[in-house]
């Protein structure tokens, strides 16, 4: 191994990269983790616990600055004065899309990636999700099935810590759980009414990567029980929720085998035609703009879906003029995100005496039922809902009429109860949804400008209508009034669940990776972030990023030890 600078290079330190770092470091491999982001140390979160009156702008970002530098990330619900340092500057990192096909790409600016900014919803995929492409012919068949991933879900869940309730539903297999968060009284009642009105539909507690019963292993890493602050994206120095900063990177660091290099953007993966293998990466220092080459036995790409594929497409050689390992030409194609936007909410009476303590960091979940227990010929696949109930606080201020003493004091009393459902639907894989690079124009780091072209498609639009209708009918069944709904679809990207563009498959002619997230053509090159996905299912993807990464790392380690890699 001494011919290489490192045994392993992991590109990216987010959800997937953190897992690759941990697994390889714990297996004894000298592992280099490169991240384009600025450094961020766990615990060093300047706005954590800051009350609003101590924030210079009470949480708001200067309007001119937003329009100039954060015109895309402002669309993310988590963007504020508290979290601004963790989001990328859109102006300095441009990408393009056709005017009629916006793609709202939300990016992190720091080590830890989006594992620091995520919403922490954690759901296994079911058998139907790995079979979907084979069944209806959209997208290529996944080379793996639920049973291949199941032990790796078990494995990552024990370490990450997932709270949730055992429900025994085939389409949404149970995780290894810590105890679930509590439903409100309204949610408990709505669950009974909805499940009685619509057999086959279920209302369950949201499954979320928060510690409710921390294990010895988690406590040893310095993590502790979630305290319901729900200010996670500012950073949680208690490690109450799973992030690579709080969990996988510290686990990797304590082995002494990990080197973490921030401000290091990977320009390309280098290839040796004589051996047929990747030899290392070309790295640009984002501060000095100096380039260097670092070599390793195995490369794991975990830079996030679109960024990973950008690097791969930029890795051009005589052998691979269209990007390393891309003889098939499939690289860059089949970009997906969740169908998001449609949903409904309703006001409920009869619960005026109920309230709660704590900002619960999750809500309820309605697992997919369409084309599971309720077939339809209007569209393929299906959707789930995230949702929950709350009492209005004071932040409906813009809709309150009146003024004066009684008007003011009314804010001190808890407001009406509301219950909302928000759909997350499965978008079909389609070749025309793709990213391309403009090699004639480079960004400030010398990376070719990314051009994204993505449309959710007709199937998604038909599904979106049903997402509203079903939400409304369930809220009615639950006893809601004043139902408000919207069927508008968000632009793709905004669900921040983007996947695809370097997909796994059985056939090297129409897929980029095999069943172990390994390049069909370049054996020591792996992609284990969202780029590897051949379909998107309707569940939030992060838990599957974790499981596939740990599984691929185990496979690669075995291959190295066998002398194959």
């Amino acid at each position: 191994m001494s011919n290489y600078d490192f045994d392993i290079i992991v590109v990216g330190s987010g959800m997937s990269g953190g897992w690759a770092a941990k697994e390889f470091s714990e297996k004894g491999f000298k592992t280099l983790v490169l991240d384009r982001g600025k450094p961020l140390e766990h615990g060093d979160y300047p706005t954590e616990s800051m009350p609003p009156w101590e924030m210079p702008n009470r949480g708001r970002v200067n309007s001119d600055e937003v329009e100039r530098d954060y015109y895309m990330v402002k669309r993310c619900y988590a963007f504020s004065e508290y979290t601004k340092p963790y989001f990328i500057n859109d102006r300095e990192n441009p990408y393009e899309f056709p005017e009629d096909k916006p793609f709202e790409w939300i990016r992190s600016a720091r080590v830890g990636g989006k594992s620091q900014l995520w919403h922490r919803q954690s759901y296994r995929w079911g058998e139907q999700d790995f079979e979907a492409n084979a069944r209806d012919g959209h997208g290529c068949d996944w080379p793996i099935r639920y049973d291949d991933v199941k032990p790796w879900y078990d494995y990552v869940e024990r370490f990450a810590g997932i709270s949730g309730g055992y429900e025994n539903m085939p389409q949404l297999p149970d995780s290894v759980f810590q105890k679930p968060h509590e439903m409100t009284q309204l949610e408990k009642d709505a669950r009974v009414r909805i499940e009685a009105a619509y057999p086959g539909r279920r209302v369950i507690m949201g499954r979320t990567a928060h510690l409710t019963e921390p294990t010895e292993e988690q406590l040893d890493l310095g993590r502790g029980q979630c305290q319901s602050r729900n200010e996670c994206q500012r950073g949680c120095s208690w490690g109450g929720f799973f992030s690579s900063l709080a969990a996988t990177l510290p686990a990797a660091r304590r082995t002494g085998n990990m080197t973490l290099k921030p401000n290091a953007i990977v320009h390309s993966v280098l290839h040796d035609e004589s051996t047929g293998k990747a030899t290392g990466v070309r790295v640009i220092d984002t501060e000095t703009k100096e380039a260097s080459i670092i070599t390793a036995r195995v490369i794991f790409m975990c830079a996030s879906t679109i960024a990973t594929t950008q690097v791969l497409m930029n890795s051009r050689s005589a052998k691979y003029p269209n990007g390393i390992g891309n003889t098939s030409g499939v690289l860059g194609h089949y970009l997906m995100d969740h169908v998001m936007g449609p949903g409904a909410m309703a006001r409920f009476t009869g619960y005026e005496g109920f309230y709660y303590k704590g900002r619960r960091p999750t809500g309820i979940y309605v697992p997919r039922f369409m084309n599971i227990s309720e077939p339809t010929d209007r569209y393929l696949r299906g959707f789930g809902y995230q949702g929950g109930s709350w009492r209005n606080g004071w932040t409906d201020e813009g809709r309150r009429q009146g003024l004066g003493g009684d008007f003011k004091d009314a804010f001190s009393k808890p407001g009406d109860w509301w219950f909302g459902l928000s759909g997350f639907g499965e978008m079909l894989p389609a070749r025309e949804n793709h990213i391309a690079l403009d090699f004639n124009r480079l960004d400030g780091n010398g990376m070719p400008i990314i051009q994204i072209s993505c449309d959710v498609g007709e199937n998604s639009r038909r599904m979106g209508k049903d997402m509203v209708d079903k939400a409304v009918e369930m809220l009615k069944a639950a006893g809601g009034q004043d139902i408000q709904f919207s069927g508008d679809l968000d632009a793709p990207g905004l669900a921040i669940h983007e996947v695809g563009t370097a997909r796994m498959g059985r056939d090297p002619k129409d897929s980029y990776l095999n069943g172990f997230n390994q390049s069909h053509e370049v054996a020591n090159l792996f992609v284990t972030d969202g780029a590897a996905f051949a379909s998107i299912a309707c569940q939030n993807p992060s838990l599957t990023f974790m499981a596939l990464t740990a599984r691929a790392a185990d496979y690669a380690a075995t291959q190295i030890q066998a002398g194959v890699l």
Partner: protein
Amino acid sequence: MGMELDRRRLLMGLSALMGGMLSPVAVKALDTATDIPADAGFRSFDENEVALMRAVIDTMLPATETPSATGVGVDLYIDHMLAAVLSAEEGAAVKRSLKRIDAAIPGFVDKTAAEQQALLSVIDGQMWQETPEAEEYRAFKSLAIVGYFTSEIGATVALAFDPVPGPFHNGTTREFSRTWAS
């Protein structure tokens, strides 16, 4: 100053209800309620505008058991928002809203609190259409309310502030009678 004394008495009473001792924040509330300097160095408003803005936000959010808008520094907050946070156009909209109130109710500043409330209530009642004027008025009113409830006294005395709640659990409004600040 009779009103200031009432407010002090009410705050003391509130404190008594809350357990008989003045919390550090309640003490601060008393200080803030009585010690706002006449000229705190406004950057975005001239003297007349400050007087009008204070009169308007204190009519929207007058002193009750808790201090008025000006009493918790909402005037300074709005000034800061115009100076450092809002775009030029957003800031101009705030000023237009104040000018419209000034034009509709001449001499607003010098009227009694009861007159101010009666007259501004009429305008408030007309501001629910989708006109630019109405939207600007509502944006201004929102600014005042957000400034109030993100202030220390607004968040911790008018509302209930809980930085570290511990595990989420259900309860009743007998246990948790005030709106959570966040």
